[in-house]
């Protein structure tokens, strides 16, 4: 007989609260008039703040982090999970701040955006805390389903519909691949629990074709979701086609969840097959860095450019992951967290420049930004420098950390390849800076946006700079998460 | 001819038993079950025939007419005459229709309506198959019947037929949800999916049957049943005033007769199920007080209850005007489904708090679930 206490519900408090919040927002929103949508927004933000507080309650006694299980081992909480959950909740909250005016201008300021955003956030938190293939898969589907709907959210826009269709079809195939791989692993190990799978795999001797097959499928599924080449086709179209606020949502928090997925599925459960997935990841990483950086040069659409930049950054994250040791994982985690921050800043600037009936998603729309608003040009400068990996911004430290991890496993050539492609990448980042500072503005209209967005965007940009000046605190958390 | 004399009844019986024993096991099982199936089907088919007669008579009286009274004494042979007539009529197959599906559709409507009787208990233990998931089986089969209607409408290659089929499809899907939820209430009350157990849980007479604690569910279930069978006032799938006869407009002869049979078989089935789920099936309304052969438990109670609900179907038809299509949809989605969900919630609270019929002593008294 089992009792409710055995489920150990208290450590899943943030998730349960978030679910209740999303349902509450859904119901409250039904009874609001169109002019009262701000209530939905405020309620969501308030809820996210409470969620953050609840996550901070999870700190264990004596500063000793252990893996705490709940729901019969389907749910795990450790330092990694707590840190990543902080990150995703914060990122989503900032995306919500950025999105309000944009949605209002386009008459899509509806409660469903926040409801779907919150459900997607719940999916990410479930993925981050997954200790079981089932909960990982369900979290992923919860996230993906919310994202598909959010991409198509602006119904009048045919680009959005096309992007949603592509995303849905490819995402469904990827989920199928992942599931297929999981079922193979289940067939061989007889368990879906990540820890039990790891134990079972450790005891197996020799090559097992079924497991390799399952591993290949899982890696393909994961690469689809992360957007690594050659499974990247959906990224540019989806980034381009969806409303910019949704792009900023997709480009940030889900990457953190994707990182958690790689750690849980590959590092934690398939750890004894590290040699096998390392080889696959090297190919994925090199291809991603090459394709991402080279194709980005030819882009004139800012959102597409950032999409290809994302692909190249995913390559860098994979560099850290393929190292397969504590150093590599923490470097990849540092990279993921800081990259999402930069990406958020970049899309924040695009949202800032848009106004009613005008999408500032062409690269020429950045022309002469310095004349229009020196402060936000400076913010964009920090973000772009950081993406390019120029010190003293945080992007430099992130790149340095993953390269160091790769060099330490005696793969100097791989590090050199990475440096080579990031030098190519600098070209298009510098072009953005040239447009902002050395070209005359074609469009001299004033930038007007709400105070909360200005504050959030400034804080976003400055945090990229501050983390670059003082990277030690975040770095030590990342190292602690894997010790 | 000498050997004929040796064919005494004793000898024939002995020979038959010998022959029986000589058959392989699986054939014995098959033959036995076949016999039971025939024992259920033949009376059922007769019932179907005479329900049509009852319908015409009853509605006739309700409308101050006489109804059929020419064929045989008081019209008793009317259904037989109808059957003979339909059997000898030509089955016309429309051009450009899909012949296989066109002929398969009526069978597909009748099949599930008959197959559902496999799990109906006529008395304690008297049923063809004592399935553990009997309730689910019934639900699955009743949800199948709509295929016949849809395929008939589509394969007729006629716009009236397809309109009828589309109406029917949307209607059946809408009401199936409410019906399913109503049965969820029953299975929560009984704690079992087995039909025998569901009846056993209702032991104790008129007031301990499920109709009392589950009254909203009973109403939803029965009305949804009327809608599922496409009977008046929910018969827009036929809708003779606007789409001629809906999905079976192109059917004639025996193919039409099978649709007709299916409709009435479904009515009897829904009536029987209502009496099983909510009115204690073969239980006597007098509970344990009655030991008399007629007043005590017995199949006759089951038949009586079923007949009452069949009568309700006919009564509805004579009483209510047809619903408009959007009204049907509104009733199904916006009234019935919320009502069932609310009542399931109420019931869940009652079960957990052990109130009313779910009090500990009551459960213990009837043997519990």
């Amino acid at each position, binding site marked *: 007989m089992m009792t409710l206490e055995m489920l150990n519900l208290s450590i899943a408090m943030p998730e349960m609260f978030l679910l209740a919040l999303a349902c509450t927002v859904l119901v409250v929103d039904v009874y609001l008039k169109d002019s009262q949508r701000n209530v939905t927004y405020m309620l969501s933000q308030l809820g996210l703040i409470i969620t953050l507080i609840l996550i901070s309650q999870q700190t264990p006694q004596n500063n000793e982090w252990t893996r705490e299980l709940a729901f019969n081992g389907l749910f795990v909480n450790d330092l990694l999970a707590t840190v990543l959950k902080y990150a995703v909740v914060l990122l989503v909250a900032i995306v919500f701040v950025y999105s309000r005016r944009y949605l209002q201008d386009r008459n899509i300021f509806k409660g469903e955006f926040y409801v779907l955003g919150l*459900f997607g956030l719940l999916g990410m938190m*479930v993925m981050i805390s997954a200790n079981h293939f089932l909960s990982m898969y*369900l979290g992923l589907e919860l996230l993906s389903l919310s994202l598909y709907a959010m991409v198509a959210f602006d119904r009048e826009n045919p680009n959005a519909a096309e992007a949603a269709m592509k995303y849905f079809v490819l995402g469904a195939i990827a989920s199928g691949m992942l599931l297929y791989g999981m079922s193979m692993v289940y067939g061989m190990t007889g368990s879906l629990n990540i820890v039990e799978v790891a134990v079972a795999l450790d005891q197996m001797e020799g090559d097992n074709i079924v497991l390799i097959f399952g591993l290949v499928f899982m890696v393909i599924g994961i690469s689809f979701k992360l957007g690594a080449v050659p499974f990247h086709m959906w990224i540019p179209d989806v980034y381009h086609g969806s409303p910019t606020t949704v792009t900023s949502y997709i480009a940030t928090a889900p990457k953190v969840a994707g990182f958690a997925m790689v750690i849980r599925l590959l590092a934690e459960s398939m750890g004894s097959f590290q040699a096998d997935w390392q080889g696959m990841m090297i190919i994925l990483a090199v291809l991603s860095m090459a394709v991402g950086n080279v194709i980005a040069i030819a882009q004139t659409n800012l959102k597409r450019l950032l999409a290809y930049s994302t692909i190249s950054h995913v390559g860098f994250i994979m560099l850290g992951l393929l190292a397969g040791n504590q150093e590599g994982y923490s470097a990849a985690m540092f990279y993921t967290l800081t990259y999402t921050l930069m990406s958020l800043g970049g899309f924040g600037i695009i949202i800032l420049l848009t106004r009613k009936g005008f999408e500032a998603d062409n690269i020429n729309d950045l022309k002469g930004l310095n004349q229009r608003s020196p402060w936000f040009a400076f913010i964009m400068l920090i973000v772009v420098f950081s993406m390019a990996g120029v010190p003293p911004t945080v992007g430099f430290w992130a790149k340095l950390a993953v390269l160091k991890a790769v060099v330490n496993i005696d793969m100097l050539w791989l590090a050199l390849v990475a440096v080579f492609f990031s030098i190519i990448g600098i070209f298009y980042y510098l072009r953005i800076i040239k447009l902002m500072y050395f070209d005359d503005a074609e469009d001299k209209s004033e930038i007007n946006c709400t105070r909360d967005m200005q504050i959030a965007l400034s804080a976003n940009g400055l945090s990229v700079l501050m983390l670059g000046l003082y990277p030690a605190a975040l770095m030590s958390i990342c190292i602690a998460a894997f010790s | 001819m000498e050997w004929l004399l040796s064919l005494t009844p004793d000898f024939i019986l002995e020979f038959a038993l010998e022959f029986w024993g000589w058959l392989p096991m699986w054939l014995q099982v098959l033959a036995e079950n076949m016999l039971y199936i025939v024992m259920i089907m033949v009376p059922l088919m007769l019932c179907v025939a005479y329900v049509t007669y009852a319908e015409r008579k009853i509605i006739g009286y309700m409308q101050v007419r006489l109804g059929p009274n020419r064929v045989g004494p008081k019209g008793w042979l009317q259904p037989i005459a109808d059957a003979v007539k339909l059997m000898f009529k030509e089955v016309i197959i429309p051009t450009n229709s899909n012949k296989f599906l066109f002929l398969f559709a009526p069978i597909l409507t009748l099949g599930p309506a008959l197959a559902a009787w496999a799990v109906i208990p006529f008395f304690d233990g008297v049923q063809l198959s004592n399935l553990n998931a009997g309730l689910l089986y019934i639900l*699955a089969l009743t949800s*199948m019947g709509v295929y016949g209607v849809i395929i008939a409408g589509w394969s007729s290659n006629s716009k009236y037929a397809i309109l009828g089929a589309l109406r029917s499809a949307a209607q059946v899907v809408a009401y199936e949800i409410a019906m399913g939820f109503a049965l969820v209430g029953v299975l929560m009350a009984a704690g079992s999916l087995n039909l025998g157990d569901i009846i056993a849980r209702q032991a104790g007479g008129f007031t301990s049957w499920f109709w009392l604690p589950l009254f909203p569910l009973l109403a939803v279930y029965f009305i949804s049943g009327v809608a599922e069978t496409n009977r008046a006032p929910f018969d827009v799938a036929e809708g003779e005033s606007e789409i001629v006869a809906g999905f079976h407009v192109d059917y004639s002869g025996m193919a039409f007769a099978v649709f007709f049979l299916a409709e009435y078989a479904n009515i009897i089935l829904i009536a029987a199920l209502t009496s099983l789920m909510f009115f204690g099936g073969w239980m006597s309304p007098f509970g344990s007080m009655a030991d008399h052969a007629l007043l005590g438990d017995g199949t006759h109670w089951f038949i009586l209850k079923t007949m009452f609900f069949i009568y309700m179907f006919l009564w509805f038809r004579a009483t209510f005007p047809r619903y408009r299509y959007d009204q049907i949809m509104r009733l199904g989605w916006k009234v019935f489904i919320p009502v069932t969900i609310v009542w399931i919630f109420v019931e869940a609270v009652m079960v957990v708090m052990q109130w009313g019929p779910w009090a500990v002593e009551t459960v213990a008294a009837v043997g519990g679930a």
Partner: protein
Amino acid sequence: MTFFEVVFYAFSTLMVVAALGVVSARNPVHSVLFLVLTFFAGSAIWLLLEAEFLAITLVLVYVGAVMVLFLFVVMMLDINITRMREGLMRYAPFGIAIAILLIVQMIMVVGPENFGLQAFAAPELHGADYSNTKELGRVLYTDYVYAFELASVILLVAIVAAITLTMRRRPNTRHQIPGEQMKVMKQDRLRIVNMKSETIDSEDK
């Protein structure tokens, strides 16, 4: 061959044939009907595994509801099959090559070598009092309650998403407000006019 095996092979053959029918039928309605047949065969195989709850639920949910809606939609679509098949021959060799590759891989991986009876013993048969429904329910609401709840959240999101993407308020559609209808009084609709009674005689003049 035991009776069990005969039934299994009969239904699995039916399932494969029906599945082939789904992809090869020329008419989309036939495809859907083949899919229904596939579900039936699958449900029969589940019954052989003593998973009667799953088997019946497959019929109830997929055949009884999902496929009905599928048929509903497919019947109303006006699909031009010849146009749909235009590119077929061009891509056929490529598709067939990939299919063969996949089949070979599958046989290598999921074949009897790795998943045969030597690797996995056949499950024990349960007695007549075994209730698959009860067992499933017990596991679903205890060990896997987290996954179960998550699945329900996914369904909720699916509902929200579907409504978000399709529901629009068109200002000029006509619809009923039943509450208003109920409030109608006789005097709102009916006007009784006093008229002089007329006779046939007066009409003639």
